[in-house]
């Protein structure tokens, strides 16, 4: 974004206008990316689940393997009547999907798509993500309560309990990486994972960079719970609570919840890639073709997206393989398994750092 502002001011645009313009442009790009990527992910998930379940999935809309199915669904959802239950608290009901979607949007600010390619390189990058992602649950509770439906309220309460308990292991498991790098800045974390580790060409955090395998697994599990994915999708467990907090939503408001869910999935995967899997690092094979300015950026985006979408594929894989946990088992896993493990990981990392300094 700073880059855009500089360019604009260099062309003689007033600073205020340049700032506002750059903000709007970046927002538009991100919203466009979220919508397109989420639609693609929905289609992808449907195809993956279908092929895992000896089905074919959508095959008709758009010709090749039903690629336009999600677009058709999206158009349908946009055109559907927006039903607000008479007994609902209309203001809160209308605000809730906006809150959920806006927080999903806001987390994209610190996603480092490539070298220098991020909306704003915040000093408190990781902390920013953690705090913003905790806002999602507010929207969920608003939705659940304002629908005035008992299933929604139950879903919202489950969601609140889940988010509060899984935020703790999520933060603690990330702390190991932050201690090693000594910074909360996303680009610094990626920079720290440069180089090689022994015979392996990667110095990623889960390899030589810090041996954060345990931290990675803890983070991934907690992150699955944070974005309500199977096996932790109890806030919207369809066989228990019908659809949980968004039972009463329809049309565009429902689609906002839906898009936000997939947008969150991508952010969670992107953060995991940045923190543990070397971010946008990978063999730069396009520089000879595109030149030294554009080449690394394209390669970075390519590797970043590849890694992120691989993690998303794993999330989908888990969803279609595992059964759902029960509420008490979820709490048990969060507080009595994940939290101790991530604390041990944190302690071990600290010890390792101290010993390394002494040597």
């Amino acid at each position, binding site marked *: 974004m700073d880059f855009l502002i500089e360019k604009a001011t260099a062309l003689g645009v007033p600073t205020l206008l340049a700032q506002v313009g750059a903000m709007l442009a970046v927002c538009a790009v991100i919203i466009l990316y979220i919508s397109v990527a989420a639609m693609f992910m929905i289609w992808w998930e449907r195809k993956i689940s279908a092929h895992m379940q000896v089905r074919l999935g959508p095959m008709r809309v758009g010709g090749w393997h039903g690629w336009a199915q999600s677009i058709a669904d999206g158009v349908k959802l946009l055109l559907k009547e927006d039903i607000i239950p008479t007994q609902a608290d209309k203001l809160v009901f209308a605000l809730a999907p906006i809150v959920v979607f806006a927080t999903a949007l806001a987390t994209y600010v610190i996603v480092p798509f490539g070298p220098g390619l991020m909306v704003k390189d915040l000093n408190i990058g990781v902390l920013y993500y953690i705090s913003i992602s905790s806002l999602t649950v507010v929207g969920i509770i608003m939705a659940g309560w304002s629908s005035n439906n*008992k299933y929604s309220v139950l879903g919202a309460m489950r969601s609140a309990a889940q988010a509060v308990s899984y935020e703790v292991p999520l933060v603690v498991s990330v702390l190991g990486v932050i201690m090693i790098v000594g910074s909360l800045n996303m680009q610094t974390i990626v920079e720290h994972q440069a180089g090689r580790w022994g015979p392996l060409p990667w110095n990623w955090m889960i390899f030589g960079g810090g041996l954060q395998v345990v931290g990675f697994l803890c983070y991934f599990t907690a992150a699955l719970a944070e974005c309500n994915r199977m096996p932790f999708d109890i806030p919207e467990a369809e066989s228990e609570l019908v659809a949980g907090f968004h039972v009463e939503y329809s049309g565009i408001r429902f689609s906002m919840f839906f898009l936000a869910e997939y947008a969150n999935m991508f952010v969670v995967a992107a953060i995991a890639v940045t923190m543990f899997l070397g971010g946008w690092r990978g063999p730069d094979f396009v520089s000879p073709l595109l030149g030294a300015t554009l080449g690394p950026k394209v390669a970075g985006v390519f590797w970043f997206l590849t890694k992120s979408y691989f993690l998303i594929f794993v999330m989908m894989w888990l969803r279609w393989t595992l*059964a759902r946990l*029960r509420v008490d088992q979820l709490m048990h896993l969060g507080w009595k398994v994940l939290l101790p493990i991530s604390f041990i990981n944190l302690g071990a990392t600290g010890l390792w750092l101290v010993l390394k300094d002494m040597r």
Partner: protein
Amino acid sequence: MDATATTTLPQGISFERGETGEEMYVNMGPQHPSTHGVLRLLLKLDGELIKDCIPYIGYLHRCHEKIGENRNYIQIIPYTDRLDYLASMYNNWSYVKAVEMLMGIKPPERAEYMRVILGELQRIASHLIWMGTFGLDLGNFTIFMYCFREREMVLDLFESVSGQRLNYAFFRIGGMPMDFPETFYTDCVSFLEWYKARLPEYDRLLTDNVIFQKRAQGIGSLSREDAISYACSGPVLRGSGVRWDLRRNDPYGIYDRFEFKVPVGERGDVWDRYMVRRIEMEESARIVEQALAQMPSGDIMGKVPKTIKPAPGQVYSRVESPRGELGHYIVSDGTPNPYRYRVRSPAYVNLSAIAAMLKGCLLADCVAVLGSIDIVLGEIDR
């Protein structure tokens, strides 16, 4: 805006009011993805903990028994299909057997073998649906599609025999209307081979999954004594540790000629009921194989009078359906219509034990317990 206000209870029904005032009343159903039809459970919840549960039935009531009293004996057969629509063969069988007992007709041996083969295939199909939907209730969607794939094959076999895929109306009083088609034997054998190879696959996906085990073990327990006093039958009773299978304990037809295990559970929880059905799925395949091997040639229809008019009397016939003891009780007054016609449906009796199973469970367990009873509303509401 009071989201947790108490539901107004129907007249004459009352929960004992709790002292804490924190309870919440939730209607689960009649439109709910996990009640397997139009069952309505009124749950009293404390947070997620189930304090009490009243099942409400009757949303699918069709006056089956009253209709039966106004039809003649042959006309009732197609109606019985609609009782337990996931195991129609057994409804036919139980009803036809009742009339045969009433009239003293003995169907020919080949017809008996056909009935066993079709019945056990039907048990496989019914348990497959149950396994799929049970997995779905606990959040595993994939097993559902896998089970439906195999069930489709069973339905293909049934279609080749009877021309129907769901409501067969294929049994006749005194025998069977037509023989198996030529292709049936090879198709059936190849299906059984395919099917037996799939069972370990289900185990890997469901039985061996730790999350699934944790969800199923130790919840919804029904003690041996309770199971007997609630008159439960079928896998629910066997899951509670009672070795009671009508095929073994009251061998009707030719069931004394086959070798099969009757699995029983120990603790009577959801897991035990799951394992009982899971093993029955193998045993049924064994029975079909034995029956195919032993199958004699000969008539398929016994000597039956032109008009079916049993002498005055009453009879109760029972078979072991996938859900338990399916019984038909018929009182004849010598006319072509039964004087009284009543169905003892196993799912209805088993469902009555749900409140005992659910005490102290969480809301999520409610779904698992309900799934483990394996209800079919067509049979419960009749």
